[in-house]
């Protein structure tokens, strides 16, 4: 069950980021000013709306600014330029620090360590939020750590630590949940359970932001996607719409054995994007009416072993959005200066 469907753009906006900028200070020592610094990477003039009950996937390569953006939304990093507006219950908040009671934040990696138990570690954070012990115990149960409640943190596996981070993020019954690479370290079963939990929370009206550089993890989970690169928002909106805008929608891939006649492809009403063929078989990526092509192939007794839609791929998205080649993108990740990227128009009112 989903809260507000991907197409439901009328859902209340709970958080608005308008031209927000936060750039990390980088050391730039000079002879007479060895402590000098200059603005480095971060997020630049980023505008984004967060809808109630929607799950937003924050997608981008390493160094794109995903973590920085999440930290700004969590009230950890200050907004250097632009404005942030939160609307929770009857309150309208204008300072990121004021968002903290409403926002649950799960950092990318927390190395829970020490002789304290799981419950003690959570209680410490719960005290900082004025959350009662009862809630701590229910969260320990929710993330599947009830058997390990008294276990010292040093004894937890990576996956268990990740679950504990999830519980910590949920402590204050947040209205906005920020998850930074939450699938790291989770086994497939735990990842599935985690996805279900996120969907359940969204159905209760919690807005969720999940950052990931693995788009595959977000398939079937997110309602909307925000594509980040070099601290800038390249595109944002429902998954299908973004794909459509980037010219990557409606793609299919089919493969089979034998030979695929070239004239058959030419006569079909599909756009062939890629065609590989060797002695062992063929593989075809195309855009258009898949059923027509498949029928035609079957009528001509071409053996089809598999076919289906092409799943979204971060590299393709980035290439399409920036107009850059994959090598250029990977080399540009650490660029300290921000330059406007080749353009996809970003519509913020979707």
């Amino acid at each position, binding site marked *: 069950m989903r809260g507000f469907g991907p197409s439901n753009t009328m859902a209340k906006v709970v958080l608005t980021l308008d031209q927000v900028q936060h750039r990390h200070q980088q050391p730039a020592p000079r002879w007479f000013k060895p402590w000098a610094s200059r603005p480095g990477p971060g997020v630049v003039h980023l505008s984004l709306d967060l809808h109630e009950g929607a799950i937003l996937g924050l997608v981008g390569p390493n160094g794109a600014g995903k973590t920085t953006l999440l930290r700004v939304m*969590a009230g950890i990093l*200050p907004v250097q330029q632009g404005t942030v507006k939160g609307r929770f219950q009857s309150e309208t908040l204008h300072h990121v620090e004021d968002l*903290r009671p409403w926002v649950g*934040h799960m950092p990318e990696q927390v190395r829970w360590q020490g002789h304290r138990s799981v419950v003690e570690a959570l209680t*410490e*954070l719960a*005290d*900082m*939020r*004025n959350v009662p012990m009862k809630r701590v115990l229910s969260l320990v149960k929710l993330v599947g750590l009830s058997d390990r409640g008294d276990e010292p943190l040093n004894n937890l596996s990576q996956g268990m630590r990740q679950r504990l981070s999830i519980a910590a993020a949920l402590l204050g019954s947040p209205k906005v949940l920020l998850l930074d690479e939450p699938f790291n370290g989770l086994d497939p079963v735990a990842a599935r359970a985690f996805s279900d939990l996120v969907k359940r929370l969204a159905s209760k009206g919690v807005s969720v932001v999940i950052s990931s550089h693995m788009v595959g993890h977000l398939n079937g989970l997110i309602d909307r996607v925000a594509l980040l690169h070099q601290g800038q928002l390249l595109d944002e909106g429902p998954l299908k719409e973004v794909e459509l805008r980037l010219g990557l929608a409606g793609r299919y891939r089919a493969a089979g054995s034998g030979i695929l006649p070239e004239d058959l492809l030419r006569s079909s009403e599909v756009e062939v994007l890629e065609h590989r063929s060797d002695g062992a078989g063929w593989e075809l990526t195309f855009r258009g009416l898949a059923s027509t092509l498949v029928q035609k192939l079957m009528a001509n007794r071409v053996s089809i072993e598999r076919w289906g839609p092409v799943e979204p791929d971060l590299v393709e998205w980035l290439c399409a959005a920036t107009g850059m080649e994959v090598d250029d993108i990977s080399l540009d990740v650490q660029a300290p200066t921000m330059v406007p990227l080749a353009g996809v128009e970003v519509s913020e009112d979707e």
Partner: protein
Amino acid sequence: MSDGARMWRMARRIRNERLMSVRLKIMAPILLLFIPGMAWGFADPNILLPGGHRPDTAMEILFYASLGVVFGATMCAVLLAFDGVSKDRASGMLELRLAQPMPRTQQADALVLGFLQAIVLPVVVLMVLSIGLVGWRTGLWTTAVESAVYIVATGLILLWYVLFALLASTAAREQGTAVAFGVGVWFLFTFLWALFTTMVAYASGVAVGEANDPAWIALEGRLDLLSPNGVYHHLLETQLPTVDRGIPAWQVWLAALGWTVLPWWWLRQRMNNLVP
């Protein structure tokens, strides 16, 4: 739960964690040797100090024994608190804490109070033991005021070193830098300050070699206000009528206030602007 109660709870948690830490267990024998051990030594009825001097009050004995606090307890304070922030930053816990609605200034206060209690509690126990040892060996007892000043002054010097260590910890991106900064500050005020004082005296034309030169004593007294260890000794000297270095008690307490308020304020500011 009120803001104050929340802060004290966090402080108590830090205190308990550090009191049970391996680090404190390692430092316990050092504290034992340096605080009651020194008091035991200086309380020897046959002791003869350089210059043929013999301490004649319990407070004077404790004043000499306070070297143990300067050398041992302050170092332990630094070693307990040097990673108070940097360890959490390295583990990712700092990010979680900074994302909580509890004001960061209160988090800073909780850190200070937690680490301070972790070092002050064992030190105060050892100081009380020292007072008892001095009384038992010499039959001389400190007055209530002397005991209070001795304990409060020691609490203050430990607070200052905890503040220095935490400040260093907020700036450090890794543990090595944090410990180097903390120990560096300790080394500066414990050992190098004498060199600094001597250099200033020499530059001012004061006779450095003359231990009883009034100009030297006055200059050293003034410069000591700029050092936490110096202020600590000034505080103890307020209870020694035979010692007069020309600094009025109110100036000493004012310097103590400055050493308390300024670094604490600075730490709160740093916590407000801290990034994970």
